[in-house]
């Protein structure tokens, strides 16, 4: 019954038949991946082999290959020297007078914002000596709430991307800005103006920018016959169409998770890919903390997820129904019926799918909980669901009285992007568009497949394309214009709630002067001949008009908004729309008719929004490519995700390439089984599989899903067929790397099973209320004897420590990217990841619970980084004292002392030390390694990292060279910066004469991971301060150490996870009851252990 006993009950486990196809699920309570669960040969080989896969780099290719490779590299090396490389313009000009308040080397922060899909996230740009080096969330911004997701942080990398477009191209040939200006003055300034813009069309990206609206108005005024279109692959159309169905006008829904006790997510990934995810995750976390004074009174919200594809929200839900995404509509209808909503068509729709077993239980529980919580619950639908589901969600919320309490609406007048690009393609096809201006985006790659946009675009006589990167669309455009990055140009944007932020540049456009570089508003101003033409003046004029201020009033207002990073009171007013049940019923009926044509065992292909490359625009950013996907842990690729049952039924193996056909269109992709997928759902993330024009990092990464995505099936394509092509593909996946549960190769499964529940300690709410100290019972520490004399840390001024709350960690990976950005962690490439050489200082472990691989009971995530052990095993074995304790008890790594014996890594029980096997910082990441002696010393294969990329490095952190070990330092550079600052302050105020000692207030030092986390799971502070947050958290009964039995005395501790399932779930409370004798406390002595 307890998980501990389960391992012992199955002595046959190690000897049972093994097959790569999922075998009958072994009875294992916790497992890390399907390979682990099935204990496949591959998995055992990975875990237990001394030489990892492809250890022998010299094997394989023949002499001819060797000559080819060497010949090519020498030729390239020659080219590299001969061809002129563009060196960034640099001026070394000393200040004749230092600007006030500017200390060279001290970071300066600018409040700005960046926009994605028309929604802005407020950021703080950290700039050192004129170089922006890191993006952090603006704590006051309603959308970013101080957090910064991985994509937003990668904005820095995007600005310095060596493969960014830095020049104007005409018909693929290099040109310059003045040539374009001459052309546009003639074409737009004279000819088109005369004709009133006949035959002119604009295709823009979604934006909330008020200046863009103004420029658009100017443009339309100048060219009244021109047509304006908008396209975003992540359309957001369904919510607008759904609210229009429900309320008669389109709205944006704002669920308020902090107000809701019961949350039902109908295929809504609120915690990760939702445009407002940071805010939603923070609100969700506020209802998940174990902070009741008396554990018996602890309340937690309950999240139900209904989805076909395991998402981050699904991983963190208390109960999760795995149903096909198409059948989510039937679940919504069943909920509505269960709540007594009466509407035509609901019964038909609910009847299109039947739910049995656990799904039926969860559905019943969901209805029960919603009924019990009117006004304290919220039902949300995801962007991939049809409009009728959004309308039903609105109707259910209305019936429960949630509208206005747990969900509010603001008007959203954006057009249907699918309809907009369709009308453009139609007019292009009809030949009525002669001149097409594409502002941002990459429609040739990401427009719906049925529009055949590339061909349609070819019909326009002249096309102008403004983009950050010369992509597939640029390749077929007459003019390609380099776009300035948001770190380089002025602009304004709106957050999810409508709050306006001003985007301010922190660096000159990183391109030659003669290439200029345009922001969208500057380009529009130039084309429409409006004055002023500079972004700065345009944005100021917009704000001056909006705020109705001028002169000095405006100047002070302007300074204020630049300082704050947003303009107060510009959020959209909350609307109070009234439900039109008749219209909803109409939508429901037509959806029911459509769903009734789909058989229960039909395959559906679901397109998902990728939390790394978004719609494909971020595909060339190494940080994002290398970030393991939160759910699949795949790096450098997407995959066709399928359920373990389908995988088994079709006899597939991980990495088998299959062809998926929908409506006569076809894609090929490699399969990857994911626990918790609905049986007949296939899913593929958008934005991958781009060609060479997407940049060398994006090239051939993953599989392109756009060729089967059409205007009618943008998110769910029913009637898909899948057939094997016989090909195979290798994924680089990190899940089984760094496994702490199998340190000893001979450890039997029973042993692993005994260890897993001690690593991630969890229980459910009822159990927590009666056993609040459950986490302390999971392991018994026999003794506290140390082999060596322990480091004496008495009298330390600070005792830095960290607490990680597993209750609120969603596993999104923002901390991983934040750490990479702050600490100059190199990108290693797919090939190196496959060899287990990822450099991320933080890894996020993922564990499944339950004995059915198709429907895991729960999923747990656990970020693991250096535990900063007080009694550190790594320090004992370093022969050269390169890793030692400092006087604050930090386990520090002395890079210039390290000679790279890797002994510390061998002796680290947490496997969190990372070794620079090569000069990663100076070489380009390699996707696949081929050929004899394919690995070359970097100094003759490349001139080191690109000049641009060097500029991105954080000057406060050493860039590690080859042969050096590294690991989490608790952001020691931030600790020291704060120490210097506070000690200086203290000294200035009189030093010891005035106050006995100096101190750093709690919360001043934030580690980079802590700062990026939207849920506040990571808390850093000083244990010597009894009032600090981290002291409070580490004193909690649910606080525990990883591998406590090794007596490492970790400074990083976890708060055990408590979930709140609505259906009965086995408590994982183990039965090692020592509760009567009290001898289970952490400090059980050896003698006690011997007695028992």
């Amino acid at each position: 019954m307890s998980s501990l006993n389960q391992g012992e009950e199955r002595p046959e486990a190690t000897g049972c038949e093994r097959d790569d196809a999922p075998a009958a699920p072994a009875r294992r309570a916790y497992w890390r991946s399907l390979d682990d669960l099935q204990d496949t040969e591959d998995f055992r080989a990975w875990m237990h082999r001394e030489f990892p896969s492809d250890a022998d780099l010299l094997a394989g290719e023949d002499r001819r290959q060797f000559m080819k490779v060497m010949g090519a590299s020498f030729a390239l090396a020659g080219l590299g020297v001969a061809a002129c490389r563009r060196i960034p313009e640099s001026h070394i000009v000393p200040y004749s007078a230092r600007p006030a308040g500017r200390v060279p080397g001290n970071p300066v922060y600018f409040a700005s914002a960046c926009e994605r899909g028309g929604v802005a996230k407020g950021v703080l740009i950290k700039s050192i000596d004129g170089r922006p080096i890191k993006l952090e969330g603006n704590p006051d911004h309603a959308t970013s709430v101080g957090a910064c997701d991985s994509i937003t942080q990668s904005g820095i990398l995007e600005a310095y991307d060596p493969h960014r477009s830095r020049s104007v191209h005409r018909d693929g040939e290099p040109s310059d800005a003045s040539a374009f200006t001459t052309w546009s003055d003639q074409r737009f300034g004279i000819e088109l103006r005369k004709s009133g813009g006949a035959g002119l069309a604009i295709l823009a990206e979604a934006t909330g920018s008020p200046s863009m609206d103004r420029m658009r108005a100017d443009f339309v005024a100048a060219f009244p016959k021109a047509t304006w279109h908008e396209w975003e692959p992540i359309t957001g159309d369904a919510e607008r169409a759904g609210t229009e169905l429900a309320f008669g006008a389109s709205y944006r829904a704002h669920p308020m998770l902090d107000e809701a006790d019961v949350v039902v997510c109908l295929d809504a990934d609120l915690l990760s890919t939702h445009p407002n995810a940071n805010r939603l995750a923070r609100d969700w976390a506020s209802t998940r903390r174990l902070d009741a004074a008396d554990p018996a009174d602890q309340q937690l919200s309950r999240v139900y997820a209904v989805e076909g594809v395991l998402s981050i929200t699904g991983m963190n839900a208390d109960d999760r129904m795995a149903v096909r995404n198409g059948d989510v509509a039937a679940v919504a209808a069943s909920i509505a019926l269960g709540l007594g909503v009466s509407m035509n068509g609901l019964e038909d729709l609910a009847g299109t799918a039947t739910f049995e077993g656990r799904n039926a239980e969860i559905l019943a529980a969901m209805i029960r909980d919603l009924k019990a919580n009117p006004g304290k619950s919220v039902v949300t639908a995801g962007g991939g669901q049809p409009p009728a589901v959004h309308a039903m969600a609105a109707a259910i919320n209305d019936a429960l009285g949630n509208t206005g309490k747990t969900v509010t609406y603001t008007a959203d007048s954006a057009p249907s992007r699918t309809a907009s690009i369709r009308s453009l393609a139609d007019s292009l096809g009809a030949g009525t568009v002669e001149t097409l201006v594409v502002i941002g985006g990459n429609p040739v790659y990401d427009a719906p497949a049925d529009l055949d946009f590339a061909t349609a675009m070819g019909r326009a006589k002249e096309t102008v394309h403004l983009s950050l990167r010369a992509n597939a669309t640029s390749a077929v455009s007459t003019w390609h214009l380099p776009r300035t990055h948001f770190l380089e140009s002025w602009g304004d944007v709106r957050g999810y709630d409508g709050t306006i932020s001003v985007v301010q540049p922190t660096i000159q456009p990183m391109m030659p002067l003669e290439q200029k570089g345009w922001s969208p508003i500057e380009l529009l101003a130039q084309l429409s001949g409006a004055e002023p033409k500079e972004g700065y003046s345009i944005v100021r004029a917009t704000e001056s008009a909006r705020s109705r201020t001028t002169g000095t009033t405006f100047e002070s207002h302007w300074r204020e908004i630049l300082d704050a990073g947003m303009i107060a009171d510009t959020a959209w007013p909350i609307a109070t729309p009234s439900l039109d049940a008749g219209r909803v019923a109409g939508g429901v009926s037509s959806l029911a008719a459509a769903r009734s044509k789909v058989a229960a065992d039909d395959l559906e292909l679901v397109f998902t929004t990728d939390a790394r490359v978004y719609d494909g625009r971020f595909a060339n950013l190494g940080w994002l490519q290398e970030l393991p996907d939160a759910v699949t842990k795949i790096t450098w690729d997407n995959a066709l995700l399928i359920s373990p049952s389908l995988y088994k039924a079709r006899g597939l193996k991980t990495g088998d390439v299959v062809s998926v056909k929908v409506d006569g269109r076809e894609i090929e992709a490699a399969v990857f089984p994911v626990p918790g997928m609905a049986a007949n759902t296939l899913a593929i993330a958008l934005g991958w599989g781009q060609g060479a024009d997407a940049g060398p990092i994006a090239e051939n990464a993953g599989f392109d899903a756009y060729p089967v995505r059409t205007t009618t099936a943008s998110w769910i394509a029913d009637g898909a067929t899948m057939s094997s092509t016989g090909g195979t593909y290798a994924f680089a996946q990190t899940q089984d790397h760094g496994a702490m549960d199998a340190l000893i190769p001979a450890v039997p499964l029973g042993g692993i099973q005994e260890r897993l529940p001690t690593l991630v300690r969890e229980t459910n709410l009822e159990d927590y209320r009666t056993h609040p100290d459950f986490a302390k019972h999971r392991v018994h520490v026999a003794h506290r004897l140390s082999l060596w004399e322990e480091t004496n840390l008495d009298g330390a001024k600070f005792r830095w420590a960290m607490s990680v709350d597993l209750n609120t960690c969603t596993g999104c990976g923002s901390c991983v990217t934040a750490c990479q950005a702050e600490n100059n962690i190199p990108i290693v490439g797919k090939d190196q990841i496959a060899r287990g050489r990822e450099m991320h200082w933080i890894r996020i472990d993922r564990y499944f619970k339950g004995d059915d691989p198709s429907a895991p009971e729960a999923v747990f995530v656990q970020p693991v980084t250096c535990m900063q052990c007080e009694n550190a095993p790594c320090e004992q074995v370093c022969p050269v004292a390169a890793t030692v304790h400092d006087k604050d008890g930090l386990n520090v790594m002395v890079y210039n002392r390290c000679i790279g014996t890797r002994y510390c890594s061998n002796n680290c029980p947490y496997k969190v030390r990372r070794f620079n096997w090569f000069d990663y910082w100076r070489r380009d990441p390699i996707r696949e390694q081929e050929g004899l002696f394919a690995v070359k010393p970097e100094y003759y294969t490349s001139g080191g990292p690109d000049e641009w990329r060097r500029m991105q490095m954080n000057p406060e952190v050493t860039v590690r060279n080859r042969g050096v070990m590294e690991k989490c330092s608790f952001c020691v550079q931030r600790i020291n910066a704060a120490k210097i600052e506070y000690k200086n302050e203290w000294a200035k105020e009189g030093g010891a004469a005035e106050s006995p000692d100096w101190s750093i207030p709690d919360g001043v030092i934030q580690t980079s991971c802590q700062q990026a986390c939207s849920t506040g799971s990571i808390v850093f502070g000083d244990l010597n301060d009894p009032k600090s947050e981290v002291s409070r958290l580490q004193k909690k009964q649910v606080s525990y150490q990883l591998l406590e039995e090794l007596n490492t005395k970790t400074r990083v501790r976890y708060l055990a996870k408590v979930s709140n399932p609505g259906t009965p779930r086995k408590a994982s409370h183990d039965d090692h009851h020592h509760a009567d004798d009290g001898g289970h406390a952490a400090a059980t002595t050896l003698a006690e252990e011997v007695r028992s």
Partner: protein
Amino acid sequence: MSSIRSDQVGGRIVDNTEEVPGTRAPLVLNMDTFGQVTNAVSKVSEAGGAPIAWYIGFAGALGLLGVLGFCVLYLIFTGVGVWGLNTPIAWAYDITNFVFWVGIGHAGTLISAILFLFRQKWRTGINRFAEAMTIFAVMCAGIFPGIHVGRVWVVYWLFPIPNYQDMWPTFRSPL
């Protein structure tokens, strides 16, 4: 020296197998001069030069040594990653090779020591062979701890060399 002894002919000792108390038996018989001794010893290796097969064998061995040299240089110039190691498995080829050669070395020492302890008179030839094997095996083994480190150029930090920074190796480390 007054009596005539049966092992002497004309004052020269011709038989050194007989023990005469108080007199050390000569080690070399029938050789008058050092020159004769030198000739006798050197003839074995110098007369007639080496056979062709020796040259072929030597070239082969040298070639293999060259491969070693090339691979070690490749390793040093490129990074220890070429060994195919990864993070949980930070030592593989290096430690395997080290242990392998140390094992060979142990075998040589063992052979030599056993024969010596049992006072086997015929041991000398085998001992030379075994001890040579040990020496070379230890040399081979010694390469690996040296080149397995990430920064070979500072490998001397492993040794307790006095320095002005007062940095000493951690003696507690088994390395």
